[in-house]
């Protein structure tokens, strides 16, 4: 298991918190909440060690496209980058609904 942290500059506040997904094989859960400052803070706990660069690429791309001052916690059980991106999009959609 490995814990990773990422920060991105952000300006758009998040109105509602959202929880999606399950910590089951090949899946992950995402907890998305308003950030206390003008930044996005992401904490990843993943069962698969050694994929820090892949997480960085997935999150760089997501937060380049989504300006969100969000505190995001991810509990991952070996999800693929595609699944991670979909769960993040789902969490954002839920927080805006």
């Amino acid at each position, binding site marked *: *298991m490995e814990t990773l942290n990422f920060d991105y500059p952000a300006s758009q506040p998040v109105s509602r*918190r959202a*929880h999606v997904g*399950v*910590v*089951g*094989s090949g*899946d992950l*859960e995402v*907890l998305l*909440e308003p950030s206390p400052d003008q930044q996005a803070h992401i904490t990843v*706990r*993943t*069962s698969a060690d050694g994929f820090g660069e892949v997480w960085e690429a997935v999150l760089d791309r997501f937060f380049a496209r989504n300006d969100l001052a969000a505190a995001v*916690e991810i*509990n*991952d*059980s070996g999800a693929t980058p595609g699944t991670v991106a979909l769960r993040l999009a789902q969490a954002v959609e839920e927080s805006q609904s």
Partner: protein
Amino acid sequence: MTAPARPKTRFTELSARERAAALLDPGTFRELIGPFERLESPHLEPQGVVPACDDGVVVARGDLDGERAVVLAVEGLFQGGGIGEVSGAKIAGALELALRDAERGHPIRPVLLLETGGIRLQEANLGLLAIAEIHAAIVALRSHAPVVGVVAGTVGCFGGMAIAVGLCSHVVMTREGRLGLNGPQVIEQEAGVAELDSDDRRLVWEAIGGEQRVATGVADTLVADDVAAIAGAVRTAFEAGPPAEHLSTQVERYEARLAEMDASESLDGPTLRALWRDEGEGR
């Protein structure tokens, strides 16, 4: 572009949270100790296992046919639904609160949605202790209100939580669901493939599948893997009220049953069903 998704009607396709919400009267689902409380297991991360923010158990309040209800749903996808210190305490605590409500004259309808291999091995004795508390709470609560257990699949229900099912007033299963003290893989690992080939699906389901368990009186209602069918069966169980005699109090009857059997001969599912056919007629 965005075609509406086909509504899910299969119960086993739903997460624990979705199952609890689907079971309760529409719009009444309210979660206690939800994901953002972050009441996760303190034992997993030190052992290199990623925790879940709800420790794999959903505690939901709401209504069933307008009556106050509490639903405890285990998430089978997280650690095989294994019961640890926190997830077990969530179930036991909710049942104990339901007991207090019932004792004060506030009727309550407790439901357990169980997908679990039993104890979470990483938490060993703490999980065992929690399951003992769950057993005690079910026995205390069932004298006030029927306690309904549902084993829909796809994990099934094993170990100490299978005993919890045995203590329930009414048990609903699907054909997909399995119920047994030891799971097939555990039996094969401990006693060898000659004792049980856990890959033999027919053999396994004939022994511990929902159809067999209902036919032999270990479970009460066999339903399709369908949200409406399961929601209906749970409501019907509460309407029927508590059984005349709970299964777990019929000790002499089952001891006599066991005494009749010849342990030197191999017993398979269909043979047991023929022997215990009358059991399926209700308790």
